[in-house]
């Protein structure tokens, strides 16, 4: 077996206790949600920390509920299985349920959480490998190996100064399209951040989240009248796989043919999900003919800039963005026409 390095685990039972644990103490604290990604990374020799905080005992962080005004609150520690099976989610936003069910495997979804999926570390061929393998490579931008005194090279896109490791979350694009916000807690206070401001297109610093902060809840607006949404992904095999590309799209269709509201997000291509505003502009307010949809899809593909750092060639992943956007838009129109 691959043995984890030693660390301490704090398992607070109450929110105040949890927040106390997040207080900066100079030791470097790592929050573990489901652990299904973090522990893999730790077995591979990164994210090493002497102290892990696990909020899994705090019931209120797992709650999924409808709040005043019809807003939906999903505790960050709710497992992916719980989110997918939740009546609240299935009734209000079935596309989210479907997106979540496409993640990983049934057993992983029983442990992995929605908050963990939103904070999923970015991925790259040259990063997600064993310590031995990365040592052979000589480190990279995202993973500086001090002993090798190397760390300023990007193997995926030589010459790039920023890391392009990929945001592989399957829940982020659809939640973004649905205008979700996140509630972030720290020892002193909390803040609400629109999910659209939570991500940065930088493979190393991809989250607007300080080390002493915790993503506590995801808030979704009450489902707007007539809003349609869908999530689709492409992967090499039908399970045990991260997406090669995904798309989460939400829109309002009038008369079954005109998008009056539209948000298109594409994931698994860059270090953050990408909103394709130019395609939205192109598509909105006009009759959504096949030609127009093709144009919108091509526009989306032209907006994304993958580098060769995960499965699939760059050209293929760009092409798949067009396919996904097209298919998802067609799905929204079809559901509006039914």
């Amino acid at each position: 077996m691959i043995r984890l390095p030693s660390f301490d685990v704090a398992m607070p039972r109450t929110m105040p206790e949890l927040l106390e644990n997040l207080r900066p103490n100079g030791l470097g604290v790592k929050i573990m949600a489901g652990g299904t990604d973090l522990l893999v990374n730790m077995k591979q020799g990164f994210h090493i920390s002497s102290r892990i905080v696990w909020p899994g005992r705090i019931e209120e962080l797992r709650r999924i509920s409808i709040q005043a005004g019809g807003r939906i609150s999903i505790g960050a520690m709710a497992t992916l299985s719980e989110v997918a099976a939740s009546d609240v989610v299935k009734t209000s936003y079935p596309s989210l349920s479907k997106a979540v069910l496409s993640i990983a495997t049934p057993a992983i979804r029983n442990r992995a959480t929605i908050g963990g999926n939103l904070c999923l570390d970015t991925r790259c061929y040259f990063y997600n490998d064993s310590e031995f393998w990365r040592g052979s490579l000589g480190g990279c931008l995202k993973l500086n190996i001090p002993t090798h005194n190397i760390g300023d090279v990007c193997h995926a896109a030589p010459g790039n100064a920023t890391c392009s490791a990929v945001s592989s979350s399957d829940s982020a694009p659809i939640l973004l399209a649905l205008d979700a916000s996140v509630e972030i807690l720290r020892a002193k206070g909390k803040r609400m951040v629109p999910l659209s401001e939570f991500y940065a297109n930088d493979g190393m610093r991809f989250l607007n989240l300080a080390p002493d902060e915790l993503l506590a809840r995801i808030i979704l607006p009450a489902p707007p009248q007539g809003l349609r949404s869908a999530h689709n992904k492409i992967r090499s095999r039908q399970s045990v796989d991260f997406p090669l590309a995904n798309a989460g799209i939400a829109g309002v269709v009038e008369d079954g043919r005109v998008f009056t509201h539209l948000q298109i997000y594409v994931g698994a291509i860059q270090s953050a999900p990408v909103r394709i505003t130019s395609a939205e502009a192109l598509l909105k307010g006009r009759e959504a003919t096949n030609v127009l949809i093709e144009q919108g899809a091509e526009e989306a593909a032209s907006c994304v800039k993958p580098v060769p750092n995960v499965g699939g060639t760059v050209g293929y992943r760009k092409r798949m963005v067009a396919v996904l956007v097209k298919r998802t838009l067609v799905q929204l129109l079809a559901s509006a026409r039914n």
Partner: protein
Amino acid sequence: MSKQLITLTVNGEPRELAVEPHWTLAEVLREQLGLTGVKIGCDVGDCGACTVLLDGKPILSCLTLAVTVEGRSIETIEALARNGVLHPLQKSFLHHGATQCGFCTPGMILTSKAILGLNDTLSEDVVREQLSGNMCRCTGYTKIVEAVQNAHLALDVAPFSPVKVDAVGQVTGGAKYADDLTLPRMLYGKILRSPHAHAKIVSIDTSKAEAHPGVVAVMIGSELLTKYGILPASQDETALCIDKVRFVGDGVAAVAAVDERTAQEALKLIIVQYELLAPVLSMEDALRTDLPKIHSETKYEDNVAKHVTLEFGNVEEGFTEADLVREDEFYYGASTHAMLEPHSALASFEPPSQSESYKDGHLTVWSATQTPHYVHRTLAKVLEMPASHIRVIKPYLGGGFGGKSEPFALEFCAAWLSIKSGRPVKITYTREEVFYSHRGRHATKMHLKTGVKKDGSITAVQYKSILDGGAYGSYGVVTAYYSGQFLTMPYKVPRYKFESTRFYTNKPPAGPKRGHGAVQPRFAFEVHLDRIANDLRIDPAELRLRNLVEPNSMTVNSLRITSCGVRECIEAVMKASGWQEKHVKLPRGRGLGMAASAYISGAGKEINWLGLPHSGAVVKVDRGGGVTVFCGSSDIGQGSNTVLAHLTAQTLGIDIGHVRVYEADTDLTPVDLGSYSSRVTFMAGNAVLRAAEDLKSKIFDAVAEKFQTAKEDLIARSNEILVHDDSTKRLSFVEAARLAEAKFGTLSAVGWYTPPQLGGTYKGAGAGPSPSYSFTAHVAEVEVDEETGHVKVCKVWSAHDCGKALNKTLVEGQIEGSVHMGIGEALTEEMTYTRTTKETPGGLLKATSLLDYKIPTSLDTPSIDVTIVETIDPEGPMGAKEAGEGPLLAVPPAIANAIYDAVGIRLLSVPFTPEKVLAALRGQTRAEKVISEPAEAPTK
């Protein structure tokens, strides 16, 4: 950090455990509680083998910290059988033959348990979805899905019959695999590996590692200088590298420590200085004489490892005679076995009683190997110990497929570290190390030239292949020959020439993978033949039928064909698939493809050409009527123990339940060469059959004497010996055996099998001959998504001639598993490496996990329809021949041909990735857009 006390319920019992916060649940369950039914196949959440139930829901114990399940309830496979009665799922798995190697079984059963009982009948889709995180490499999922769907039928005590004689342990967690074994004072070993593809070792400093608390022994390559290799012609490996490293992952040093964590840490304290050499990373590089040689001792100036050329008849004459000569180029990417169980070996050394030399001591090695005999021989050679002082035992084995069919570094290192430390040492590879051990499918470039007459009859074939062999010889010389030798079946080839070259490169060594050597050329030839059918406007099935080899014939390269049911196979899959109604008639995007193949039932020549039997067996009877079979054969999940028990029981006329098989223990069992080249049913089967016949003869002698009747009048049936026309004269088997013991003394018999003299007299004639060949045909139906390039295999119809199915379910399981593996090779699996650039070193294997190396899941493997064709082989045991490898060969070309039928593109390079599909669709020529016409009457 300090231990924490946690309380939890494990399998219904309250437990209080002291655990370190960083211990995973898998560690605690396996090592603290001895619940070794929790299997570790990858340890990073990809394979699902470590699944346990947490409050009734499946979770991965390798990615769960034990402290986080405090107060909760954990259920492992060990809890399912209650009061000596199996759980319905366990019964159903046994009844449906849903276990082969059994390594994924505990996880499969537990994951299934979570959805069981929701309603009576679970749909196939629901089951496949639920099991989609539990990888299985043996079964093709078919029988597992059936077992889960039908488990409710076993809820009561409905009668069920287990398919295998040794599967109960697999469904209860009782079966011990190599990594499940522990011994008192056992140390954990780890191997330090080369970070460079090609480099000289300048120095190794192990002093810091040796001084590290908890480290007991450290070793480096120069301590075991003797070279070894599986073939006499490939003695090019050492236990650890001595003066140079040849691929990223090559072993350099090893440590043994009190626990695995300490061993892991100690590796980082070993300082190795390297002098980098230019790496040879492609077959083109291997031909360059300006690059360093990987093995200085070869006779070639470049990195050629083996070159063979053979010609049978004058092919030029054949091409002149032909009406059409077609040439094609093909590429087949490297793939690996990805068996679920990582390699593992436990060595225990007992010092000599009378001398100071370790060579007089005794060594026992339990290893996850397909070939204990070869491991035994090679340990003796490398350790310079008498073989009589070494015992090799294969415990339950979690899948091999060729990936465990020769000695590996861990066996020597565990043994040597045990000798050095005087304590037992266990080494288990991580999943990444399994990928470096490789010995899988050679990446192969191929050129084919075939002449045919207008009626489709073949006049000549010329084949050329180059093979990327990686860093060591392995079985590579055989691979080079096999690459060419099997193209003369299953179609008649009157003139044939082939040339085959295997290269050394700085990559993990390639070797034998299911269908060894024959898979790549079979892909090439079957696609080539489809194109010829298209050129001639003959239905591809018809073209195949016109060219088939006949039973009791000889190929141009002197392969002796005896039983042969290839025609029945093709006809069976045509009928089952609705070929006439569907081929070229399905809407665009959907298509049907066919391919056929032949494969050996064991190699006619033993690796070392010693002229000794290939398999031996002892059968003995105890006074209670129990019959014990001792045979060196290795059950690696395929069910050879069951086959041997069946042959014995059938011969002696007793219930299979009275037969026990002891296998794969070099102290207890006569030599069998191992589970490779599809030889076990045929060869060990014949050995056991011979022993059982001899035993029966003794018993009959005694009974005939008692009844004063002719021996020929006796029948052994239903646990009795009877006189066939006199119902008053009968003895129970127990009584009869006692009678025989009284007459002859202690009752036992030996049997052995040596293949007849086979093959031609030309140089190289030893590679290819087999006492019998199996035959297969597949039809695949695919759906091609022309936007994503994704190929979905919707259904595969398979027919296989296995001579006689001694156990139908086992044969089906081999076919279904072969189809799964063939689909993976065809579509998603490939071993690729980093390329050398200014920034990036080359030669790093890109996919070193089961996440990145994409074997098909239950959702990627279709339903498989199997027809067994029986031809009763004249020399096979009760008519049987192989079923384990042959059914893989024709899968990739059947898929390729189906893709052509669906969308009119010819994919000439395996795997058929979505990128290649899209590129081919973009580059479609007019000619290739024309889907082949249905058969026309040949004009001549």
